[in-house]
């Protein structure tokens, strides 16, 4: 295979699966890649399975070429260098800042509850200390699509609602995840379940979701309602996928990436799609917005999974190796397993035997699992850039491009 980073993957079968996921290649392009790299057509069954996920892509030019070109244009640096000194990279955040000023206040206004205690629970994470990462992307995407559609300067109120709803859905799912994982802390605070108990935490999550759903309905657009309802289903299905592990290596990668899409990327992808639908009727624009969100979302989670191994405990707001402790095998472990097959048994028993977590941790650090996961994240970012570059140039579009670099470099 001509693409240099692919050399890092020891199992080219695994790489083919991953590759396909990265780019959402058309069926022809995929078979082409597979046969070019391995000279076999054995992957056709796999191809069929893979192509049932995600929408179908109608891109005219061969993707392989496009990928080459963009690889040269946008090389992304490696993980784990601090960004705080670099003012220029903060741009995406400051650019969206004005539109997001009253975000949390507006969310709290949506949470209409008569009982003071339930109100306090619902408001708990909307304290203004979150990164508001999702709303930021949504706002920038909305403005980029608006420029693309010749409607400069105006952010539609409905588009801003989508930004708000995306944060609400995200928060509702966090509240439930903390109960499922029995977590004590989140963003440096005690979790709702620790403070008020599991029962009330679940109800608070349900309430935030119902408020988000009402706000969504009030936009009055059936397509937008459908698009974001899909997110809610994906979130739960992703959580279910996390319960199981796959015996077979290829299956395991596919399972991991599909889970990552459902748990993290679907929300970003579909929110981006929703804001594009609100301003432009061209399905191709919707697809660009969706694909950008999908690729950025998966990359975001891959970096998160890396940070679980590389970041020290207090930075991420959660203890490191948290995923291993929950029995989850993320990207770095899956890559490490190709190098150290000893990990296989541990993955299958979900690191449940004494000492498994430490041993797995050691193996991952000895392997280049972290590095390879990072390459994979870079690749998703390149695809996101390729997609968004199809929109007409605008400050916001460029900010979305810069955001991918920022994301790869983030250390918390």
């Amino acid at each position, binding site marked *: 295979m001509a693409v240099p980073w692919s050399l890092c993957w020891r199992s080219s079968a695994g790489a083919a699966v991953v590759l396909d996921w990265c780019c959402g290649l058309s069926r022809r392009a995929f078979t082409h890649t597979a046969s070019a790299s391995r000279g076999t057509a054995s992957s056709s069954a796999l191809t069929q399975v893979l192509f049932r996920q995600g929408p179908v892509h109608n891109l005219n030019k061969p993707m392989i070429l496009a990928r080459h070109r963009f690889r040269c244009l946008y090389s992304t640096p490696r993980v784990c260098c601090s960004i705080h000194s670099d003012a220029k990279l903060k741009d995406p955040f400051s650019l969206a800042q004005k539109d997001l000023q009253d975000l949390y206040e507006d969310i709290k206004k949506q949470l209409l509850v008569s009982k003071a205690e339930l109100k306090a629970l619902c408001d708990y994470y909307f304290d203004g200390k979150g990164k508001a990462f999702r709303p930021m992307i949504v706002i920038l995407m909305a403005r980029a699509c608006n420029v693309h559609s010749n409607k400069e300067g105006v952010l539609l109120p409905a588009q801003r609602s989508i930004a708000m709803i995306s944060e609400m859905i995200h928060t509702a799912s966090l509240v439930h995840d903390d109960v499922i994982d029995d977590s004590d802390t989140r963003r440096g605070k005690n979790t709702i379940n620790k403070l008020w108990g599991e029962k009330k935490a679940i109800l608070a999550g349900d309430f935030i979701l119902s408020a988000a759903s009402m706000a969504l309905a009030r936009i009055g657009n059936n397509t937008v309602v459908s698009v974001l*309802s899909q997110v809610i289903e994906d979130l739960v299905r992703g959580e279910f996928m996390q319960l199981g592990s796959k015996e077979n290596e290829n299956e395991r990668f596919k399972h991991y990436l599909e889970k990552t899409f459902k748990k993290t990327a679907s929300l970003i992808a579909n929110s981006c799609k929703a804001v594009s639908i609100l301003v432009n009727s061209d399905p191709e624009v919707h697809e660009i917005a969706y694909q950008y969100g999908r690729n950025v979302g998966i990359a975001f989670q891959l970096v998160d999974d890396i940070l679980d191994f590389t970041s020290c405990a207090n930075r991420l707001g959660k203890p490191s190796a948290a995923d291993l402790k929950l029995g989850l095998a993320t990207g770095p472990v899956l890559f490490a397993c190709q190098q150290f097959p000893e990990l296989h048994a541990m993955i299958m028993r979900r690191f449940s035997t004494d000492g498994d977590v430490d041993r797995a941790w050691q193996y991952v650090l000895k392997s280049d699992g972290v590095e390879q996961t990072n390459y994979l994240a870079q690749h998703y970012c390149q695809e996101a850039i390729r997609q968004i570059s199809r929109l007409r140039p605008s400050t916001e579009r460029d900010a979305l491009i810069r955001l991918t670099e920022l994301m790869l470099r983030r250390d918390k």
Partner: protein
Amino acid sequence: MAWRSRLSYIGRRHLSIIFSNPSPSNWTKVVSDAEKIVGYPTSFMSLRCLLSDELSNVAMHVRKLVGTKHPLLNTARGFVFDSRNNIQMRGLVVLLMSKAAGPSPSTSDPIHDSMISGIYPSQRNLAEITELIHTAFLVHRGIVNLKEWSNSDGPLKDMQFGNKMAVLSGDFLLANACTGLAQLNDTKVVELISSAIGDVVQGIYHESSSSAEEGSLTLASWEDQTFLSHGALLAKSCQAAMKLARHGTEAQNLAFQYGKHLTLGHKLNSDLQPFVKSESEPAVFSLDSAPVVFHRQIVGPERWRHQLKQAQNMARQIDYTKLRGLIKMERGVSQALDLCSYHGNKALEAMKCFPPSDARSALENMACAVTKF
């Protein structure tokens, strides 16, 4: 110990939520007659949902809970083993209401052709969604607070696992309700049903926080809270069924009223069951049930505290049979009975404006059945 008694109380309440059939024989007959009218039996919990990988996954895992005290086990048992008794009243009422209201008033409406036994497919989907939401909250109601769990009650790990399954399966049902709602293609209906979900949450939240200081409810707040936790979903679903067939605001309002009063009457009926049974049967009831709330209002807080003390046994636990005797000496029970027939009659009244039909009669029979003991 406190936990143990509360858990068994929750367990019982759970069963009573699932199987709460006022005067079982009468109610069951009314309901099974009504089922015939709407076309097919009331297994609305969509097959799609029950046959999904996700729920069969849960079913597999729930087996691990056998022998533990996690409430999810009872809830699940209710679906699987007692599906015959687990009458999905809410879905049925939505279908009957749809049929009673008839086709869309504007005759040129293209949705006409899609009616099956007098009900639009969207209304059938709505009935299913209503059941999904109701079931989701049965499951979420059964989440256990881990802090209140002591080691003597059994391994904490089992409870954590049970919670995990309960959160996931409840969320799964809610998510399916959300996508189902979106497919109805009516944002007003999405908004209405979403607000009903919010209502149910507030109602249940109240339930779970006042259970700590059980017996603190006033009559007015009993009605408010019962509407939120039991009535809002059905009332708003009935209203939405009218909206889907493009009936006007008047029909929507009547349907809402029927759903509201039927559930309030139904709840009063089941609250009254322990008080109308023969004296010899042992009694168990919530101190927040309607007859107790009425009684407390009549005797005042001081005498009530005295009576609670009176009803305590040697182990300082409440002897419910004794307490029932004290309550039955006052007018609380008869006032609750009056309120029950008031709501039954209000439900009947709401049906008057609908044209006579089998479906209307069935809804009237249900409204009558909740006032019979």
